[in-house]
């Protein structure tokens, strides 16, 4: 169960969410993507409030997207996978698709069957698929968990450039505290479904206010 009194995500920031397994990180992302609704309380997106009793307009849902830990690709070509989100919106722009593929370094593999790629390549396809629809909010659920260092660096670089060039708001769930430190503007620690602390990255790691945050950052936390 997730219990959040209040949490604000600023436009254009990268919020890193860290915490042990089962702390509610993925649940938080599902709520932010409106894949689930809160049993109580509300989620505000810009000026609109959404709770358990209110359906989410499609136009709002389509401004947010998630890249999950395990890339779930369609049994189609790389190009068709990246294009998919556009076709949902009644659009078809080959230039946009190829630009997204180029951004993730996979333009040469456009015609390849997506499911025959390596894990790192598949994750980059998933990322391109999310970027091509130009979301206002990009949710990354441990996107580099199973990847080699080269692919990790590649995806981190893409996330950083997306934030800087498009001003996309990113919420990054990660087990890798170093990754959170590298990428995030602010970091949030979740423990047992509760927000322990949220602070600017520097302060979070150098001067944590909560003892549990200190223990987590020092790697002393025993679960």
């Amino acid at each position, binding site marked *: 169960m997730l219990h959040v009194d209040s949490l604000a995500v600023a436009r254009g920031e990268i919020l890193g969410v860290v915490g042990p397994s089962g702390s509610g990180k993925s649940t938080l992302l599902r709520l932010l*993507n409106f*894949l689930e609704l809160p049993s109580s309380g509300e989620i505000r997106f810009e000026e609109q409030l959404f709770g358990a009793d209110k359906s989410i307009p*499609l136009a709002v*849902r*389509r401004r947010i*997207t*998630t890249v*999950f830990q*395990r890339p*779930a*690709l*369609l*049994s189609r070509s790389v190009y068709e996978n990246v294009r*998919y*989100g556009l076709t*949902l*919106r009644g659009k078809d722009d080959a230039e946009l698709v190829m630009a997204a593929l180029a951004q993730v370094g996979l333009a040469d593999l456009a015609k390849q069957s997506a499911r025959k790629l390596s894990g790192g390549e598949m994750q980059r396809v*998933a990322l391109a*698929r*999310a970027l091509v*629809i130009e979301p206002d909010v990009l*949710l990354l659920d441990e996107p580099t968990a199973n990847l080699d260092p080269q692919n990790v660096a590649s995806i981190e670089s893409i996330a950083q450039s997306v934030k800087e060039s498009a001003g996309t708001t990113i919420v990054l769930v990660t087990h890798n505290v170093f990754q959170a430190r590298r990428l995030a503007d602010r970091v949030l620690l979740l423990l047992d479904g509760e927000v322990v602390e949220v602070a600017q990255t520097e302060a979070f790691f150098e001067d944590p206010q909560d003892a549990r945050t200190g223990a987590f950052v020092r790697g002393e936390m025993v679960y």
Partner: protein
Amino acid sequence: MLTGLLEAFNLILRGDADLAEIVLLSFQVSGLALFFSSLIGVPLGAQMALNHFRGHRLVSLLIYTGMGLPPVVAGLFVYLLLSRSGPLGGMDSGLVPTLFTPAAMIFAQTIIALPLVTGFTMAAVMAVDAELRRQIVALGATSWQMTLTILREARAGVAVAIMAGFGRVIAEVGAVMLVGGNIDHKTRVLTTAIVLETRKGEFDLAIALGLILLSLAFLSNLLMLRLQGTV
């Protein structure tokens, strides 16, 4: 068996008109039954797999039970429905099929094929990765778009569902005999013709018709697999 095989070739090569009529009617009846059962069964199976509602378990149980429905029981049900004293038999409506017509046979075979198409489609859609479903919704798909996408991902299984339905109806005799009556030049199909010729002692002809039926079923499935892209 060998004389039956030779008789089969003989019938086909000389272009026997009666045989052609029987084969054509067999495909028309079973083909249309398959069309209607797929039209209803594929979306129904998909919705059963993707949505949960009160009574879902009961409906699933009914579908799975229906998959084992004996064709002759389906025929009996349709017979009683359409007979003059039945609830639909008294209606003078162009929409209600009349007994001992191909329309009644199509109706009965649709009932036979529907649970199969629905049940296997449901299983095929349920087998699609749940993570993929979640990702599709996260990309902004409407419920309808998600269903279509998942059905496309499950297309191999859906093809199997349709093939299973076709295999069941092209080979059944109980229902079409009851509601069709095996009337020469009107409601005689391959399976009922086999029954007739066997009863008459025309075993070579019966074997020939049986081999033709088997071959047609084989070719139909081969075509389906080619369309599916697995052959």
